[in-house]
C-alpha cells in the first residue's frame, strides 16, 4: 500500500466504502486492492493457518459488500471498521476450533497452547512499531514487560486469557490482572495524548 498521508488514505477508503454501499463493483475491487494485504496479515497472525485466513478474508469481504451501508464515517475510521470485522471473524474461528478440539486434546498445563511462529517481528516489537509514528509509543513503552507482552500476544495472535497463562507460564489470575491494568493504563495514556476523539 502506498504510504500516503493517513488522513487522505482514510478519506479514499471511506469514499470507496460509500460507493460499495451502492453496489459499485469497481469501488469494491479498489477497496480490496487497498485493504486486502493488511487484513490478510491481521487474520494470518491470529489464526496462523493460511487456508483458514483465506476463508475468513473471503467471508469478511462478502460481509463488507453486503454491509458497507452500515459503515458510519462519523463514528470510526474505515480501516478500524474493516479490521474489526476481520478480527471478530478470526476470534469466532478460534472459538469454533477450540470447541471442535476440546474433547480430543488432553489438557497439558505445562505446554504452550500454540506454537508461536518465530518469523517476523515479535508481537511486543509490533506493538512498539505500531506506536512508532505517534505518541502511542510512549504509552506502550510505559507498560511493564509482562503486561506489555500479554497485550501484544492477545491483540496480534488472538490468545485468550487461558492461552496467555499457558504460553507465558503465569497463573491465570496474574494474566487477567496484567491485561486489565495494562488496558487501563493504555487508555489513560492514549486519551491523555488526544489520540481518541
Amino acid at each position, binding site marked *: 500500500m502506498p504510504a500516503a498521508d493517513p488522513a487522505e488514505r482514510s478519506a479514499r477508503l471511506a469514499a470507496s466504502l460509500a460507493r460499495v454501499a451502492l453496489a459499485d*463493483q469497481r469501488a469494491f*475491487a*479498489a477497496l480490496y486492492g487497498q485493504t486486502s494485504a493488511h487484513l*490478510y*496479515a491481521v487474520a494470518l497472525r491470529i489464526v496462523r493457518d493460511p487456508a483458514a485466513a483465506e476463508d475468513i478474508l473471503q467471508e469478511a469481504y*462478502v460481509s463488507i459488500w453486503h454491509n458497507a451501508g452500515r459503515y458510519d464515517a462519523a463514528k470510526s475510521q474505515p480501516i478500524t471498521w474493516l479490521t474489526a470485522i476481520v478480527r471478530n471473524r478470526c476470534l469466532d474461528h478460534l472459538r469454533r476450533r477450540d470447541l471442535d478440539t476440546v474433547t480430543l486434546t488432553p489438557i497439558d498445563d505445562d505446554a504452550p497452547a500454540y506454537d508461536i511462529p518465530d518469523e*517476523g517481528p515479535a508481537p511486543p516489537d509490533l506493538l512498539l512499531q505500531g506506536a512508532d509514528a505517534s505518541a502511542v509509543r510512549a504509552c506502550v513503552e510505559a507498560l511493564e514487560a509482562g503486561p506489555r507482552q500479554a497485550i501484544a500476544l492477545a491483540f496480534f495472535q488472538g490468545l485468550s486469557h487461558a492461552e496467555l497463562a499457558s504460553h507465558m507460564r503465569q497463573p491465570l489470575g496474574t494474566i487477567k490482572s496484567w491485561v486489565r491494568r495494562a488496558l487501563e493504563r493504555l487508555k489513560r495514556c492514549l486519551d491523555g495524548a488526544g489520540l481518541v476523539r
Partner: protein
Amino acid sequence: MDLAHPERRERLDQLAAEYALGTLRGRARDRFARAMRSDPVVAEAARDWERRLAALAAAVPGITPAPRVWTGIVTRLGLHGAAEEAGLSWWQRLGFWRGFALASFAAALALSVLQLSGPGALPGETLVVVLAGPDARPAMIATAARNERVLTMKPVIDADPGPGRAYELWALPDGAAPQSLGVIPRGGVARIPLRSASGEALARIPQLAVSLEPAGGSPTGAPTGPVLFTGRVERFY
C-alpha cells in the same frame, strides 16, 4: 442490559476493552456483541477501544493474499461485471504474480533435474516451462521445440480438475491481459496447438499460468477461476 448505567460505566469500559483486545471470549463475547447492537452506549465504548487499538494494528506488515481469494469473493457474490474486470487489471497492476516467487525457484530446480536426465531430454532448441503452485511443488511441465506449432504438457502430479471443470493454459504477457492458449485435455501427456511456431507465439511471453475453469474453458476470455500454477518460460536457444 443495564451496562449503560453510569455506575456500570467502569465495568462496561473493561468489557469493551477486552472485547476489542479479543480476550473476551465465548458466551460473554456473544452477550457483549448483542448489547452493542441494541445499545448505542455499549457500541460507542467498543468503538472507542477499537480506535485505541487500531493505532497498534497498523504495524502489521501487509501480506498479499493469493489470487484465488479475490476470485472466490467474486464467485460467492455472483459479481460478473466490473468487479471481475477491475479485479483483473488490479492484480496485474500490483504484480500479483510475485506471490509465486517461490514457485519459480522450484521451477528452476525441476529444470536442472530435467537437464540432468541425460542427453535427448531436451532435443535441439527447446522452450521449457515448469508450472508450480504457490507451495512451490511443480505440477506440470510444458515443452515445445522452437520451430514447432505445438506445446506438450506433461502432468507431474495427479491433479484432476474435477467433474465439470477444466484446466486452461494462459500466456501472461508483461503488462497486458492473459491470453488463452486453450483448455488442457485431461489425462496424461497433452498436446496444445499454437497459432504459430512456439519460438514466435511465445516470443514476448515471460510466464504461463494454469487456471481452474468451467468445462470447456473460461466463458469470458479471461481467467475466471483460481490460478493454480504458474511458471517462467525458459528458452534454450
